[in-house]
């Protein structure tokens, strides 16, 4: 039984990140974009944790913790905004919301 | 000191107009008129100073006060015959510009006259400033009120015209500022005396290449103002969109600051460099004469047409300056004066027509001579002046310039002379379209009123007098032949 290689995990993280990125690019619904952002944040957290595991240090997990906190704060604000936007404009389409920027 | 008073009268008169106009618009108009008349009287009174200087060669008045001594900026104004003539022209056209806006301006009267008077103050400042910093300062002062005049009281496309005017002139001004600073530092480094003073900088020794670049900086600003042909595009737009008084000031005075700048600064500061660039400038001048005339011929907008004739006439000025001939230099001064009067008169005429017909399009005019015989007569006089008919001032100017240029550059002079044919073409076309043919305008049009008659009479008399008795002008600017070492008979 061999051990896990660091870059294998990093590749997994990269795949997840890219998937999140692609999601953010192709979706027009704000909720889906937020979800994609969560995926990306998560992938970044994964990379930190791998790094921590690689050097046998707790710092990776601490960073993950910060990301988690940041994500929580971000999601709460973002979702509040989503609620407000939907309330006012009756749509979550980012393209339509763009037209309303002025 | 009297010179500073002249400017101060204009500046304070402008502020006074602004303050009174809200309650009493009529009073503001009278204040503006009296202010300029007061300056005109002072300028006339200055003739007395001449008597102390019978040789006509030196500076009559030279006044210097500290302004920002730490960087060598002083409030230095001086007057010689050339400046004095230009001051007289400034106040003369200033009076007329106030008169011709008497009825035209109906809104924001106070601010209008404020801008008008401040612009006049800037122009007169330019003509007497003997400190380069002060010169630049006045150069900008005359520009900004003019910008407001166009952008607030102009015609339909006034914003475009005003921005174009501002950007063009500002590009030139900034280059000139660079050149002034370069000259300032070079002079300071050489002598240890950092000064912006005209007479101090006059004998700055610069090597060829540097002198050339600094000269180009000055020349560029003046060439845009003059305007020299590839940089003339602001002029038709600004002239055609500006209110009548604005066009009058633009054509009559602002263009002349370019000519004044070249004569006063470029030639004495850079004697060698200006000789080396002279063929190109003459070429551009000739191009301007022909090209402006061709464009004037095809225009259908009356004020635009007149604006292009200015381009053509200013080409003569450029040719005259750079042919380094004494006769041509006198011709340039004559051209500056007579063009200011004749083109100013044409713009006033265009303004009168616009006031009556509400259009500047000459294809919609025609046959107006029948209902406006007096204006028709005046129009013939000034189109003929513009076409260089002898006995009117413009002829003397163009004759001198071409004759002076002929000795050194016969080919260019001959081509420039062909501009006389073209000037006949566009002048006659303008007369024909506006005054001849069947009357097409259905609205009843009145002939000129008393106020307009005064304006036109003043202009007509002065153009005829300049044509028949040019000698006083020639005597006054005789000393210009010493302004550059290459100027010959």
């Amino acid at each position, binding site marked *: 039984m*061999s*051990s*896990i*290689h*660091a*870059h*294998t*995990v990093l*590749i*997994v993280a*990269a795949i*997840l990140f*890219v*998937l999140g*990125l*692609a*999601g953010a*690019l*192709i979706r*027009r*619904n704000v*909720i*889906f974009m*937020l*979800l*994609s952002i*969560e*995926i990306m944040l*998560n992938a970044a*957290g*994964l990379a930190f*944790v791998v790094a*921590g*595991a690689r050097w*046998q*240090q*707790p*710092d*990776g*997990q*601490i960073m993950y*913790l*910060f990301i*988690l*906190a*940041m*994500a929580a*704060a*971000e*999601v*709460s*604000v973002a*979702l*509040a*905004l*989503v*609620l407000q936007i*939907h*309330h006012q404009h009756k749509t*979550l389409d980012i393209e339509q919301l763009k037209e309303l920027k002025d | 000191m009297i010179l500073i008073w002249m400017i101060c009268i204009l500046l304070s008169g402008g502020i006074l107009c602004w303050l009174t106009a809200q309650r009493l618009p009529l009073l503001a108009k009278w204040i503006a008129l009296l202010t300029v008349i007061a300056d005109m009287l002072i300028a006339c009174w200055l003739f007395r100073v001449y008597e102390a200087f019978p040789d006509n060669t030196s500076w009559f008045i030279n006044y210097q006060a500290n302004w920002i001594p730490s960087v060598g900026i002083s409030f230095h104004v001086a007057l010689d015959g050339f400046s004095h003539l230009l001051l007289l022209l400034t106040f003369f056209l200033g009076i007329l510009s106030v008169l011709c806006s008497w009825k035209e301006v109906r809104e924001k009267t106070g601010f209008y006259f404020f801008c008008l008077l401040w612009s006049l103050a800037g122009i007169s400042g330019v003509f007497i400033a003997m400190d380069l910093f002060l010169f630049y300062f006045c150069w900008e002062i005359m520009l900004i009120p003019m910008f407001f005049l166009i952008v607030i009281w102009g015609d339909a496309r006034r914003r475009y015209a005003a921005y174009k005017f501002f950007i063009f002139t500002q590009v030139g001004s900034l280059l000139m500022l660079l050149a002034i600073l370069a000259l300032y530092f070079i002079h300071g480094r050489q002598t240890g005396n950092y000064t912006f003073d005209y007479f101090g900088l006059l004998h700055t020794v610069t090597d060829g290449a540097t002198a050339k670049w600094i000269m180009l900086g000055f020349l560029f600003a003046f060439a845009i103002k003059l305007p020299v042909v590839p940089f003339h595009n602001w002029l038709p737009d600004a002239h055609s969109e500006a209110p009548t008084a604005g066009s009058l000031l633009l054509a009559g005075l602002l263009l002349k600051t370019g000519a004044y700048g070249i004569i006063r600064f470029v030639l004495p500061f850079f004697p060698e460099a200006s000789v080396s660039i002279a063929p190109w400038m003459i070429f551009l001048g000739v191009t301007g004469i022909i090209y402006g005339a061709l464009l004037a011929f095809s225009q259908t907008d009356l004020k635009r047409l007149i604006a292009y004739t200015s381009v053509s006439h200013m080409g003569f000025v450029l040719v005259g300056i750079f042919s380094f001939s004494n006769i041509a230099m006198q011709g340039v001064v004559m051209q500056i004066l007579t063009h200011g009067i004749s083109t100013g008169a044409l713009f006033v005429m265009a303004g009168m027509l616009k006031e009556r017909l509400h259009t500047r399009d000459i294809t919609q005019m025609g046959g107006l001579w029948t209902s406006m015989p007096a204006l028709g007569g005046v129009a013939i006089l000034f189109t003929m002046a513009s076409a260089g008919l002898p006995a009117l001032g413009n002829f003397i100017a163009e004759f001198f310039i071409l004759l002076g240029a002929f000795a050194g550059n016969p080919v260019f002079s001959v081509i420039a002379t062909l501009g006389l044919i073209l000037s006949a073409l566009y002048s006659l076309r303008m007369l024909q379209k506006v005054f001849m043919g069947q009357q097409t305008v259905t609205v009843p049009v009145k002939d000129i009123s008393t106020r307009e008659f005064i304006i036109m009479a003043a202009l007509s008399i002065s153009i005829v007098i300049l044509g028949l008795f040019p000698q006083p002008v020639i005597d006054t600017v005789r000393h210009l032949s010493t302004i550059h070492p290459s100027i010959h008979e």
Partner: protein
Amino acid sequence: MPLLFYISSVIAILATIMVITRYSPVHALLYLVVSFLAIAVIFLSLGAPFAAALEVIIYAGAIMVLFLFVTMMLNLGKQTALQEKEWLQPKVWIGPSLMAFALLAEMIILLLRPESVAMPFAVVTPRQVSMSLYGEYIIAVELVGFLMMTGIVGAAHIGKHKKKNLHRFLQT
């Protein structure tokens, strides 16, 4: 342990793909929960039990529930799914996907460049994490505290329904 890692990695990737391709927000959310759980298992296999626990509790638990609530509040149902279907045309997603894959390819190339290092399996215990967290990272923790508080205040403020300016006669 590696086997566990590989299996959970595959599940995470597949679930994530499902997230970004679903039309219904609820489906996507559920797949995302699956993906997060799989990542939690990855953490576990990498010797980070604390992180794994947080992943499950906070991500899959709290945050996703937040999403779910919002989705339910907005009543995003079939209507939204149809709309999403309409939006998700190939011409819309092919370009970004290709770019994303290009990025992925480049990242993989970059990752494979250095000599690969096999990681020793050792658990970084929650204790170690906590010691470090409240030792050298104390400032960061406090900053995170600020962040969380502003997040709460902000969310509370933004999420508040603004009162409409009704005339007093119309107010009930």
